């Protein structure tokens, strides 16, 4: 478990690993769920539509309270991100290696947040004010300001990666080292999975999305 994901093939220099294949499976599940729940939309909603409307409304409220009313256009991206992360972090429940236990995946998502932050900072403040922001309050603090800007996406990526990889290694150790203890039916495996897979996975996905929203909102004013 700790040696890294298995490499299956190499296409044009890009390696296809366990993480990639698990990510494709998570994407397929999410796409099927989205297609099924948006068919036959009625004014008086059925069960599936009620749940989807509840999720969308909750996310809209969260985006409005964190980023302000004029930034509601970020809500679809944030909802996609939190749904993908929630599914991807909890596939440990069925024995698959979570795709976010791979540093490539988490750094890719945090680089997306970094690009969004810089782009919208330039777009809303103008490139002159944006560049001047690095020289305030004192010009000799320029390296510190640049490092502070870079530390945000790096810490986002490493937080998610570290939590998920730690959880995966501990579950692997529990299953191989304490095999007889894990055969106690229904008590010990449930406690271990409930903490490491469900609670930690969902909390980390929520933290990632909240911090992304706060970074983008702070960069725009």
């Amino acid at each position, binding site marked *: 478990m*700790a*040696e*890294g994901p298995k490499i299956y093939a190499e296409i044009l220099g890009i390696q296809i690993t366990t993480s990639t294949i698990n990510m494709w499976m998570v994407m397929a599940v999410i796409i099927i769920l989205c297609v099924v729940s948006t068919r036959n939309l009625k004014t008086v909603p059925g069960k599936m539509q009620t749940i989807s409307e509840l999720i969308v409304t909750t996310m809209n409220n969260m985006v409005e309270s964190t980023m302000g009313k004029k930034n509601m256009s970020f809500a679809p991206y944030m909802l996609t991100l939190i749904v993908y992360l929630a599914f991807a972090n909890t596939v440990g429940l069925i024995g698959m290696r979570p795709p976010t236990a791979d540093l490539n995946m988490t750094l890719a998502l945090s680089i997306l947040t970094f690009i969004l932050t810089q782009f919208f900072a330039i777009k809303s403040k103008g490139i002159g004010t944006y560049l001047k922001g690095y020289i305030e309050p004192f010009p000799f603090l320029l390296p510190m300001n640049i490092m502070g800007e870079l530390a945000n996406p790096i*810490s986002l990526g*490493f*937080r998610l*990666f*570290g*939590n998920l*990889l*730690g959880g995966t*290694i501990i579950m692997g150790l529990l299953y191989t080292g304490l095999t007889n203890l894990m055969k106690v039916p229904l008590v010990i495996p449930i406690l271990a999975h409930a903490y490491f897979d469900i609670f930690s996975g969902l*909390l*980390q996905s*929520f*933290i990632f999305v*909240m*911090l992304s929203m706060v970074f983008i909102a702070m960069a725009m004013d």
Partner: protein
Amino acid sequence: MITGIEIIKACSAIGAGLAMIAGLGPGIGQGFAAGKGAEAVGRQPDAAGEITRTMLLGQAVAETTGIYSLVIALILIFANPFI
């Protein structure tokens, strides 16, 4: 006589153990934050949901440095660049 690769492996193992001393910080900080959260809920029981959410957010951010030290220890044990 201990030479070369064995000293590197031994010192990597010691380094991984020393790196986990940084687990002290998040333990103290998060416990303190949880105490403040419990105090706030005691003062205003209606806001318990909002207080819990804010406390969990703050604790997950405070755990970051402990995670950094765990990543260094895991790199030293499993993906050692010095060997």
